[in-house]
């Protein structure tokens, strides 16, 4: 039996790795950042069950770490793939963490002592981390990583404070990149997505008006591990908002940016509006939408509850622009309610943009033609009706948002499907 490589440690990659490993197949799970978890780790709760995202995700992350058939390669990237189904050669580059992971206990002493502050990617730059850091409290592996772009030792040749304070002496500034070559039967790619640049729709003022947020930023505001410890407060003055507008289809269903629908945003915003109401019972939430795409199991019911039980207001409109009141930093939303054909403007004190999902294609696999992008830039699935997760090249599987915008259950289902198909190559390999 030959092993399988899974690229991407978000929920899709995690599930694929577990479904393979539980079948007795050896798996290498490659993740480019220091921890697995992906986007789901950044979410506060998930729709329509309102399950807490970390609560259902972290046990899976721990299970990956503990599984005897899974070898976790975090902070690593696939550099090159050649070969045929059943026999691929994969070159993986392990970046140096400058921390000996066998010694590091994740105690966080180094993080406390490090003098350098860097915008924290996990919280989308809304607070700071240190130059040596553990990305988030539930990170797996729970190990520190030095960011050489900001570390004083690497930039100015001074400091080494972390080294001095590390109880198990795990810091190692001499670590070098390491190249690993694997021979595998199949490759599952689950490299996920990032949000499109909301500034492309300049009329909404993202990046210009402080109280305009992306939906992912808002998730971090809701989260107890976020930059505000779960307080919804405005960037401009730290006050609780009283009136939040959620604007759907920002850079989605849009001729100028992305023509496709991002599939998750209607439900995500509905959920965020409910959660905002839970955090701030008096807050008014309005969702500006084109169509409510509550298509999944329990989603329509969730939408109905948002309206009826939680009093979330839904307005069928695509706002034309947002202006900021320079004094109050409040936001004036101009829109036409298409159900009354009335042009109007309305003031809010916070705006959340549901920004389109963009796939992250793994360069090395695209370059070698193993994955081909479709018209929209997602990974193409030429045999979608027979093999819904197979990439252009047999033996390569593409799952999750990399392949098309989708929610967590659909990503998990595709992960299982890819695990099944890859296992067949693994046992005959």
């Amino acid at each position, binding site marked *: 039996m030959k092993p399988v490589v899974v690229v991407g440690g978000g929920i899709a990659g995690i599930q694929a790795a577990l479904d393979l490993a539980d079948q007795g197949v050896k798996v290498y799970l490659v993740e480019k950042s220091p921890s697995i978890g992906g986007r789901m780790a950044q979410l506060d709760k998930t729709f329509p069950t309102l*399950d807490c995202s970390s*609560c*259902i995700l972290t046990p899976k992350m721990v299970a990956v770490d503990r599984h005897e058939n899974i070898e976790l390669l975090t902070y690593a990237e696939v550099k090159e793939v050649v070969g045929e189904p059943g026999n691929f050669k994969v070159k993986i580059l392990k970046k140096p963490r400058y921390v000996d992971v066998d010694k590091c206990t994740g105690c966080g002493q180094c993080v406390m002592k490090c003098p350098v502050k860097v915008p924290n990617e996990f919280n989308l730059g809304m607070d700071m981390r240190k130059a040596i850091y553990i990305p988030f409290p539930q990170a797996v592996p729970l190990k520190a990583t030095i960011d050489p772009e900001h570390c004083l030792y690497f930039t100015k040749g001074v400091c080494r404070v972390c080294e001095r304070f590390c109880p198990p002496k795990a810091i190692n500034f001499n670590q070098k990149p390491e190249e690993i070559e694997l021979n595998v039967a199949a490759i599952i790619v689950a490299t996920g997505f990032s949000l499109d640049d909301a500034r492309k729709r300049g009329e909404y003022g993202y990046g210009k008006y402080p109280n305009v947020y992306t939906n992912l930023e808002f998730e971090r505001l809701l989260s107890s591990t976020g930059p505000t410890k779960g307080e919804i407060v405005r960037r401009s003055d730290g006050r609780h908002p009283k009136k939040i507008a959620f604007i759907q289809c920002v850079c989605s269903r849009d001729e100028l940016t992305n023509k*496709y629908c*991002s599939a998750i945003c209607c439900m995500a915003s509905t959920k965020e509006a409910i959660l905002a109401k839970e955090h701030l019972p008096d807050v008014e939430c309005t969702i500006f939408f084109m169509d409510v795409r*509550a298509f999944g*199991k329990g989603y329509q019911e969730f939408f109905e509850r948002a309206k009826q039980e939680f009093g979330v207001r839904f307005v069928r409109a695509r706002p034309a622009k947002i202006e900021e009141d320079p004094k109050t930093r409040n936001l004036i939303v101009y829109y036409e309610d*298409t159900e009354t054909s009335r042009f109007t403007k309305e003031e809010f004190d916070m705006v959340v943009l549901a920004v389109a999902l963009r796939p992250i294609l793994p360069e090395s696999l695209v370059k070698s033609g193993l994955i081909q992008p479709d018209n929209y830039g997602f990974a193409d699935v030429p045999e979608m009706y027979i093999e819904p997760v197979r990439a252009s090249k047999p033996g390569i599987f593409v799952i999750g948002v990399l392949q098309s915008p989708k929610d967590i259950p659909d990503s998990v289902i595709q992960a299982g499907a890819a695990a*099944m198909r890859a296992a067949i190559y693994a046992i005959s390999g």
Partner: protein
Amino acid sequence: MSEEIRIGVYVCHCGLNIAGVVNVKEVVEYAKTLPNVVVAKDYVFMCSAPGQAMIKEDIKEHKLNRVVVAACSPAMHEPTFRGVLGDAGLNPYLFEMANIREHCSWVHPDDKEAATEKAKELVRMAVAKARLLEPLEKIKSAVRPAVLVIGGGVAGLRATLDLVERGFDVYLVEKRSVLGGNAVKLGELAYTTLTGKDVVNSLVEKIKANPKAHIFLNSEVEKVDGSIGDFRVTVTRRLGEGKEEKIELNVGAIIVAIGYDPYEPAIGEYGYKTTDKVVTLFQLMDILSEEGPTKGELLIGGIRPKSLAFILCVGSLSTTPNAKPYCSRMCCSASLKTILKIKEKYPDIDVYVFYKDMRTYGKEEDLYWKAIENEVKFIRFDEAPSVKPRDKFVEVEAFDTTIQERIAIPVDAVVLANGMVPATDTEKIRIMLKIGCGADGFLKEAHLKLRPVEALTDGIFLAGVATGPKNIIESIASGSAAAAKAATIVTKEEIEVEPLIARVNEDMCSGCGICAALCPYEAITIEVKEDGKRISKVNSMLCKGCGTCAAACPSGAMQQSGFKDNQVMAQVVATFRGE
């Protein structure tokens, strides 16, 4: 049992899910006052790696021999924390959970004081039970390396093909005389010239060529006994002339892929069956398919329509009194796909689409753009349109919310985009397999987000529309996903099952036989010993741990592990007072 009881109590914040309502620190302080509690701590996410590590360290450092975690529902994390105990060298069953999230903070957000008080009491009850817990060993059972697939639609076919290619025997049971389910009638699929039938054929050919596949047509599953790893299944096959044959199968896992029925509108619902000019979308797709009644020619009520009105959400989104509240997911895209195929073949046809919300999600939005390019006219409604058959045409009338006007459009034929409803067999299968269904009538998955192809009962997996509306691609993917889960079971030689079963204390048993008469699994027999004493014997492979025997035992000789009389009683007492 002279060992000193040393209990650790761990109270989870669950971010703000618990800590936002319950005063966690107060609960911890209270827990410390309870007898036998040697350590009590709180942490932001007890289930995370650091939370788990903390418990493990404490087990060693404080020599804990019982652990109580106050957090979410045991349905969520009991297995996680049992694993933690196991890792720390403690028997996993020396663990008890207090559900202070689903049963407390989430349902009492407005009364923090009462919620905190309740959380303390729930911890007290859990500690009281924990004190009396005993170590248990999982029961090992041999696994049959074969899988039963119920339903030969695309999801069941995909699951079957995957598992036979993976090397397992699969018994595919289909009640109809042909394989393929609803997909064979879908005609040409979106983005391709492939038809539903082509997809079915390509799967069926490969399955039939594989000796591991055993197909039973005209067959239905009648009875299922046993449990994960070892299900005993009775299948009835109809042989014609009223004859039947019974087939006994033995499998390690079961995949339920029983599909759906298209929603059948009531007579008169949107004019259905009051005129031959109103057809459903499923009927239209069949008309357009080469194998259909008109060999692919677009003929409705005998004529080739020049204009068509599609009404969406028929049977869905509560648009009519008969309609279901849920969204059927595939009808928007399926309608637009069909319209585009029609436009390609008959460019002169005018098409009107009456819709409530256009739900061409993801890349399927492409179909919507193309429909607009092809001058399909879209009319949005809140109130369901009315359909009035006239002499030579049909009039569709609706209040168009976009222009805020009532409009009436005469068309040659009307297509009702009917949704999906649970297959008629759902109820029978659900009861037979003892798996649940949701308020929507579809089968219920173990967890909507992260366990979408698993039933709540171990060893049973769900594929395709059995759990809720899906398109053909999603159904096929879920077939493979369910196959993967089944494969994780049948690759193993033996599997461990929960030890929460009945056990008898032979010294106390009088052999009265009440338990044996009550047992639904015939797991209890009365044995006569050499000295003539009669005693109950529990067959641990057959017992499923319901505990009804224990509830009835007059002497207390019969006990259910994990739910012994003294354990439950301790919880009852602790509900009212500490010690």
